[in-house]
Every structure is written in structure tokens, then in C-alpha cells.
């Protein structure tokens, strides 16, 4: 499996982190290829940040092994730090320093060679669009600017791997879009990007995804693989009038497992084997006088996949919990 470690930027096996009796990260194993955009997707509190902090050498794992940029996460944490850029969830540059002072500070800490300092600084300022605000204190900048400046300071030393922990939380949609353009540019230059998010539409931008739930990696693969391999059920999209009322009507149709509001319509989770379930849905809605404009099998969205995987996991755990309790 690890025949060619060179081609992997991140490799971890059975990574575990416990805080007292609480298991924040439960035996996660994953590999990230060099040059890949790897998305770490999961709800808040699933253990995404804890994992990323262990990979960056900020936190010692309780158990498990791993390498980042070829260095061991337990023994060589300090060597890893020279080869990665990290941007935490919370803005963590100095609010009381100006844009230039923050860049100069990190440029000195990363010991950028003197010949390159000016060029790297200009690059960050241009990239972040802060030409007009060089001497402004960071505190007064808007969210999008702060986020790009933070990214700039984190990659001043041009690391081959960057870790971004929910980089776009609290940022407006336009800034979020241009931030992802930036990530694509970096990935195009061969940089490996490890990014956590809980936005489904952002997950679609990634080359590969890992789905985390309650500290466990419950699925991994490209967005397309997740949509096709990991769904045991089909999704039928139903567009009709008064979808809210229709929701309660459809729950009892044979072969229907779940009904959920999705945009203007409904997503109905149906058993793959069920015969003519679409017909059954249509006739049930006709009986109750709902005007149906569309009822078709669709390729599931990532959200469908994620919800279905989480529910499968919960169903699996419940009986165990009852026995244990």
C-alpha cells in the first residue's frame, strides 16, 4: 500500500486522539497524494481540526502513526513545520500589527532569504488585494482580506503542503469563490492542499474527500466515487406544490426510506430494488391532490451521500448502544 511513499504528501494509520475519556479522533487512516486537493468533510465537532492539528505537529497523537512530507508526525514534528503552511480556523495574525508588519514578521520567522523577501511580500499583498492597505492595521480589514492575508503569511516560505482549517467560515460568497480560485492555482503549481470544511458545495471542488463523523473516517474517495459507490439507495427528486405537506404523505409509500426538503422540492430516498417506486410516489401524490411537475431518479448530491452515510452509521450504533446501556 505504501509502495511509493514519495507520491504521498500525507499518510496516517490508525491515528487516535483522546482527551480524557473523550475520543476526539478514532483510528483514522488516510493517504493524500502529492498535488491533490483533499477535502476533510464533516459536521462541527467531528474531529477535523484535531486531526489537522496532529498532522501539523501542534498536538501529539494518543496512538497511531503517520508521516507528513515524509517526516514522522511523532518524532519529527519540528521538521514537518518547515515544509507545511497552516491556516487555522480562527484568524491568528496580529490584529495590532499592520499588513506589512505581519508579513515582515512571518518572513523573518520563516527565514526567507533576503533576496526573496521583497518579492514574496509583494506577492502576498497583490494576491490578497491589499495594495491600498499596506499600512492598515489588520484589525480593520474585512473577513475576506484577513483570510487571504493569513493564507499569504502561511505560505510565504512556499511549502509543498498546506493545511487549511475551515478557511472560508465567516467569509462572504464572493470572497469564498476567489479563495477557491487561489487554492486551484496553488494546486496547479503542485502544492498539496488539505482542507477541512462543512460546506457541501466546497467539497465538490476537491479531488478527493474524506468524510468524518464522530471522530471516525466513514468514507473516502473522489466526489463521484462517493456518489456512486457509497450510496446503497437511490434518490428521487420530486417537484410538487406544497412540498412541506407532501413530505408527510410520502413517508408511508412502500420502498421509501426517507423524505427530506431540498431546495424547492423533495429528495426521496428509495430502496434500489423497489419496483416502480416512482409510479407509487406519483399515484400517492395524485390521490392527495398534489400537482407534481417532476419525479425522477437523480445522481445524489454530496449532501444526500453524507446524510445517508451518517444515518447508516447511527442505525448501526444504536442497537449496540442499547445493549451496552
Amino acid at each position: 500500500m505504501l509502495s511509493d511513499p514519495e507520491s504521498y504528501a500525507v499518510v496516517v494509520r490508525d491515528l487516535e486522539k483522546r482527551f480524557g475519556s473523550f475520543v476526539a479522533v478514532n483510528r483514522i487512516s488516510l493517504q493524500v497524494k502529492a498535488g491533490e486537493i483533499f477535502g476533510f468533510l464533516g459536521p462541527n465537532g467531528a474531529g477535523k481540526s484535531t486531526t489537522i492539528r496532529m498532522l501539523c505537529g501542534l498536538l501529539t497523537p494518543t496512538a497511531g502513526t503517520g508521516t507528513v512530507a515524509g517526516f514522522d508526525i511523532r518524532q519529527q514534528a519540528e521538521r514537518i513545520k518547515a515544509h507545511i503552511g497552516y491556516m487555522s480556523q480562527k484568524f491568528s495574525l496580529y490584529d495590532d500589527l499592520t499588513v506589512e508588519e505581519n508579513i515582515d514578521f512571518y518572513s523573518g520567522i520563516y527565514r526567507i532569504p533576503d533576496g526573496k523577501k521583497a518579492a514574496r511580500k509583494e506577492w502576498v499583498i497583490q494576491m490578497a488585494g491589499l495594495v491600498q492597505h499596506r499600512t492598515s492595521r489588520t484589525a480593520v480589514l474585512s473577513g475576506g482580506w484577513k483570510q487571504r492575508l493569513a493564507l499569504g503569511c502561511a505560505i510565504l516560505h512556499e511549502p509543498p503542503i498546506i493545511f487549511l482549517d475551515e478557511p472560508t467560515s465567516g467569509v462572504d460568497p464572493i470572497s469564498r469563490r476567489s479563495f477557491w480560485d487561489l487554492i486551484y492555482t496553488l494546486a496547479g503549481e503542485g502544492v498539496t492542499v488539505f482542507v477541512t470544511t462543512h460546506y457541501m458545495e466546497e467539497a465538490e471542488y476537491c479531488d478527493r474527500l474524506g468524510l468524518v463523523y464522530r471522530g471516525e473516517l466513514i468514507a473516502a474517495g473522489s466526489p463521484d466515487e462517493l456518489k456512486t459507490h457509497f450510496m446503497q439507495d437511490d434518490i428521487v427528486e420530486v417537484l410538487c406544490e406544497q412540498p412541506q405537506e407532501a413530505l408527510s404523505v410520502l413517508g408511508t409509500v412502500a420502498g421509501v426510506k426517507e423524505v427530506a426538503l431540498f431546495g424547492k422540492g423533495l429528495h426521496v430516498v428509495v430502496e434500489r430494488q423497489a419496483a416502480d417506486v416512482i409510479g407509487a410516489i406519483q399515484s400517492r401524490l395524485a390521490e392527495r391532490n398534489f400537482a407534481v411537475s417532476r419525479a425522477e431518479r437523480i445522481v445524489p448530491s454530496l449532501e444526500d451521500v453524507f446524510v445517508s452515510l451518517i444515518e447508516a452509521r447511527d442505525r448501526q450504533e444504536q442497537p449496540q448502544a442499547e445493549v451496552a446501556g
Partner: protein
Amino acid sequence: MRERITRMLIKEFIQILRDPRMRTVIFVMPLVQTLVFGYAVTTDVTDIPTALFDLDNSRASRELAAQFSGSGYFDVVAYIDREEAARHLLDRGAVKAVLRMNKGFGDALRAGRTAPLQVIVDGTDSNTAAIVLNYAGQIAGRFSEAVLQTRVVRATGEPATPARVIVETRAWFNENLESRNFYVPGVIVLIVTLVTLMLSSMAVVREKEIGTIEQIMVTPISQAEFILGKTLPFALIGFADVALVTVMAAYWFDVPVRGSLLLLIGATTLYLMSTLGIGLLISTISRTQQQAMMSAFFFYFPAMLLSGFVFPIANMPEGVQWLTYLNPLRYFLVIIRGIFLKGVGPELLWPQMAALLILGTVTLWVASKRFQKTSI
């Protein structure tokens, strides 16, 4: 190594000097404290407000009263003729002492009998009261001697020449026994301790609380570089404060500076190791700035009280005296007073300097052990 530490230094200085509260702590507080200790805090007792309760009103009683008010120590502010009035004035705190001479005071002296002078003092502040009684005893003693001389001259026509001991006092190092000379050099110790302790105890925890520390911890900066970057700026500020207070003491308050300034700088360096080590330790242990501030004061107040700054260590219970050996302030105070007032050098101060070196090394070592770039 140099580049990273320089960058840390610049950053810390920008942050400190941009914060108006910090500027006040660093520059205004030393000035205010020096002025307070130079002018206001004095244990010299003069101009004691006094009430005169003279029931005799004879020549002798008036003469004695004049001796009291002429001494400079007693300031007669009230003349009373009833005992209740004395009680009332003392209760209110309007006077600190009452001089009472009963009817027949002058007659008794003339007849060669013992004449009582009653001195009532407000004993609330036991130190001051003892000093007041001491002054009163001296004045009364001189008065008795004068009375005796007059009687001898009148009887024999010649002054008496009895054999007796005369006490000739000389105070060394602080010739006029001015409490300013004792306290102002001590202020250096207080200021340097307070400023460097506060700044360094905030240093790491502030970044922890705001979250900026995470971004530094993920860079390849070494632990030593980070710790130096978080202590050197405050050491420099400590030196600046020593210089500020020394200049004020010497040129404003005329406190003698008899020893070597080089020794002052050397001893300050040793002392700063301890305060910065303790501050850094507090900073790495605390979770919030508030917690760090509380811990810093929790150290500062007992350390100051048990340093000998105000209360002599020799007067403390033995157990407490042993405890003071762990107190870096104690050693620095001896060194500072030695340099300022006595002008002594390292040949006498080396034990104190050695103690500071040991305490400083231990605290810095413990603090850097506690601080880890990777948390568990």
C-alpha cells in the same frame, strides 16, 4: 537564530508601545511610584499635632511647653483645660499627643521636689507612638538638667561639673537619617519586579487567549528562540526602568549613588532572570490573561512584604526568615542599597549575586521545561 529573535523583538516592541495601557505601565508608573516614595512615604516623625493641658500655668510649665514646641517635633495646636477635651481631641485624631502639667508643677520644682509631666500619646500606630515618647523623654531630660544647673549655680555660684557619659551619635551611609534615601533605591526593585513580571506573565498567555500562538507554533521557530523573543524585550524595558528611576533618584531626590553603575547593570541582569523566569512560568501555566494577572500579584505582594523593603527581615519569625531565602527581591534589595548608599562592590555583594544567579537559572529552566511547542 538572530533573525528570528530580532523579528520577535521588533514585534513585541511594536505591540507594547502601541498599547496605551502598556505605555502607562512602563513609563508613567515608575515616575509616579518614585515620586510617591520620594515625597509621601516617609517614616520621619515631625510636627506631631499636640494639645497642651497646662493646669499650672507657671513660669516653669510655660518654659517646658516652649521647649516642646521649639523642638520642631511637637506642634501645639490646641490649649485645653479639661480632661474631656483631651479625650475628645485624641478620639477625633486631631492631636497625637497631649502634654499635661498639674497645678503645683512650678512650685514643686522650686521646692526641689519631683514634678510629673504626663504625656498621653495616640498608640494606634505603635511605631510613631514610640518615637513620640522617645522625643518627649529627651526634651524632658534636657529640661531637668537645665533646672538642676540653675539650682547648682544659685547655691554655689559655679556651674556643676558632674562626671557623666555623653552619647555622640553618627549615622553612616545615610547621615541625616532620611527615609527617602532608604526607600527611593528600593523603588527600583519594586518597579523592575512589577513591570517585568506583568509584561512577561502576559506575554505567552495573551497570544494563547487571542489564538495567535497557534500560527507561530506551526512555524519552525525553535523553543529557545521563542522564549528569548518573549523575554528579551521585557529585560530591555526593565533596564530602561532601572535607568529612569536611578536618574530620578540621583538628580531629583539627591539620593547618593556611591557604588558602580556597571555593578548595578550586572546585578539587574541577574535579577531579571528570576522575574522573567517566574513571569514566563505564570504565562505558560495560565489559561487566561486574568488568571496570569492574579497569579503575578499573588507572587508580587508577599514577595514585596517579605523582601525587607519596608519591614526588616531580622524582625520576622524564624520560619518566615527562612522563606525569604527563596525570595529574589531580598537579594536585589541588599545589592541596590549597597550600591546606592554604601558604595560597596562585588567583593561584599557576591553572595547575593550568586543567589540571584541560582534562582534565575532555576526559574528560567522550569519555565522553559513547562513550555512546549507541541501540546499533549
